[in-house]
């Protein structure tokens, strides 16, 4: 199994798709940090450096997890659909004929790459935000104390969101469809559905993917489509289980419907 996972990681490293996803997420992260400081300055002399979770969320959350995290499922989609698009699936299944092993290997590789994206993003936030925070007179140590508790959840979010994309990719097999479903689902459909249920039926759909992700990160992230202060969140572990289910559900359905089909 380690061999399969290593091979899958090599596949990700040696194609441009995952790097493009990483690059876009870093750009979004950078824009988020810039936006937070610029909007903070706009508040004039009253601007205070972020020292609480809420303020921290305002600093990086909108850019970092509002968009950058939501790029992660694309990675998972590419991990499987690129194989079908370029017919590499034939080679993959000749190397590893047991298909369930291929899927587990891809899941491990997606999770590792997702964590890598998260660490890269955090490094960028630190590189940009901390000097800026110091220059603004904010307390770096106070910020780090706030960040520490949410980092594990942040890592878990990226890993689980990559898994979510992989599940969608296994189910659909088609690269364009997979990317559209994950992007459209999390950026467009989820906020609309959430708002409709919240305002028309007074129901909080806190089990939607980005909402569950917000729970796992302990409030650092913001669920799409609503203000964070009003957010009703699951416990972190419930959120993690819900997010895992969003990944495993399509993966299991896809395994029994599409992935076991003949490769002709």
């Amino acid at each position, binding site marked *: 199994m380690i061999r399969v996972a290593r091979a899958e990681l090599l596949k990700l490293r*040696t194609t441009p798709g995952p790097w493009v996803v990483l690059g876009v997420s870093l750009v979004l992260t950078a824009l988020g940090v810039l936006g937070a400081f610029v909007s903070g300055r706009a508040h004039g002399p009253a601007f205070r450096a972020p020292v609480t979770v809420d303020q921290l969320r305002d600093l990086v959350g909108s850019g970092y997890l509002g968009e950058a995290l939501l790029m992660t499922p694309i990675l998972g989609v590419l991990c499987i659909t690129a194989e079908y698009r370029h017919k590499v699936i034939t080679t993959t299944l*000749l*190397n*590893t*004929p047991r298909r369930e092993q291929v899927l587990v290997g891809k899941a491990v590789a997606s999770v590792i790459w997702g964590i890598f994206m998260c660490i890269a993003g955090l490094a960028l936030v630190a590189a940009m935000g901390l000097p800026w925070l110091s220059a603004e007179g904010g307390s770096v140590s106070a910020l780090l104390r706030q960040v520490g508790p949410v980092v594990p959840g942040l890592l878990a979010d990226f890993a689980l969101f990559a898994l979510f994309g992989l599940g969608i990719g296994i189910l659909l097999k088609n690269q364009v469809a997979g990317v559209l479903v994950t992007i459209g689902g999390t950026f467009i459909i989820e906020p609309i559905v959430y708002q409709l249920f919240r305002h028309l039926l007074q129901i909080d759909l806190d089990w939607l993917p980005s909402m569950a992700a917000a729970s796992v990160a302990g409030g650092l992230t913001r669920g799409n489509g609503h203000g964070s202060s009003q957010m009703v969140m699951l416990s972190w572990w419930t959120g993690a289980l819900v997010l895992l289910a969003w990944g495993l559900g399509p993966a299991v359905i896809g395994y029994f419907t599409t992935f076991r089909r*003949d490769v002709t």
Partner: protein
Amino acid sequence: MAVAPPATGVPIEVHGLTKHFGRVHAVQGLDFVVQPGRVTGFLGPNGAGKTTTLRMLLGLVNPTAGTATIGGQRYRDITLPLHQVGAVLEATSFHPARRARSHLKMIAIAGGIDNSRIDQVLELVGLSGDAKRKVGGFSMGMRQRLELAGALLGDPGVLILDEPSNGLDPQGIAWLREFLRHLAGQGRTVLVSSHLLAEMAQTIDDVIIVAQGQVRALGTLASLMSATQSAMRVRTPEPDRLQAVLLSVGLTFQREGHDIVTIGGVGPEQLGPLLAAHQVVVYELTHQGINLESLFLSLTAGLGYEASPVGRANPPVQVWAPMPQDQAPPGPVAPGPVAPGPVAPPGRRPAHAAPDPTATWAPPPTQPPIPPTPPVPPPETPSGPPSGNPQ
């Protein structure tokens, strides 16, 4: 990284293999055995079910019925399959942005193969200088070579190749022909499908001809050719003596001109010794036997080139019986039994003995261990033309 010992050739066995794609019966009850130490050609027109059969053999397509095993195991049950089986299925299974070396490294990691093999196989197929190039910039022939390199990474005892000469230049084809013969000479099992019949005729020992998903003929190429109606053209200063000899052994013939006799239903292996035994002077002896292409066309004529829908399948023309499992040797099958010749040395054709009803099966010779890397010259410098196939 664990490196398995070099694999030895094992038989490929297909029994009752059937595949239906909806209403289309792509493969219908195939039965054949491919023996080690032989190059076996898997021939058939487009849509005959060749690729589907090979993909079922490799676990990519699930059979509707029947079994396909390699060394008695289904492909997906083989531990570290790349050490036992190398496959070339299509020259398009590459990510265009991935470099050739990375492609092979990916296979090596997944297959538990030492990285040192990568450079060896790249050199073997003549791609050492292109290892760092992206596959998207490769020609069809280069992709085919890369695919072959991937199949050879694990130094497997069984090679399954689907149209491996597609896209190769004449030099590459000649090299491949030598290479396959070399691998079979080492005792490996080589199953190769192709539509290049003239090319195959120079390469293969055994042949399986399929059409409409069914076996039409199988056996050694020599026995197939010999048992098929052929003729010998003899130019001799002693046509009357020759005529008497032919009459004495019951062969049919036809006089053409004053010094030419055409004898039917006989090949050079039978006629040569006969003429020598009776000391008939011969100026010219020409085999007018059918070649593989005409044999192929005669067996598949009128069958159509598409897979047969339900209820439309033509009854198979079983020219030879399936190889008996309990006595299948690395040789021909009944009813044209031929004593199996020794495993050919690298680059040489095995002797194709004449049909002999009294011949009996001999056990296959014990195969020596396979060295890790076949010392085959790169395609740019082929070692010379192979010996021809008697026709």
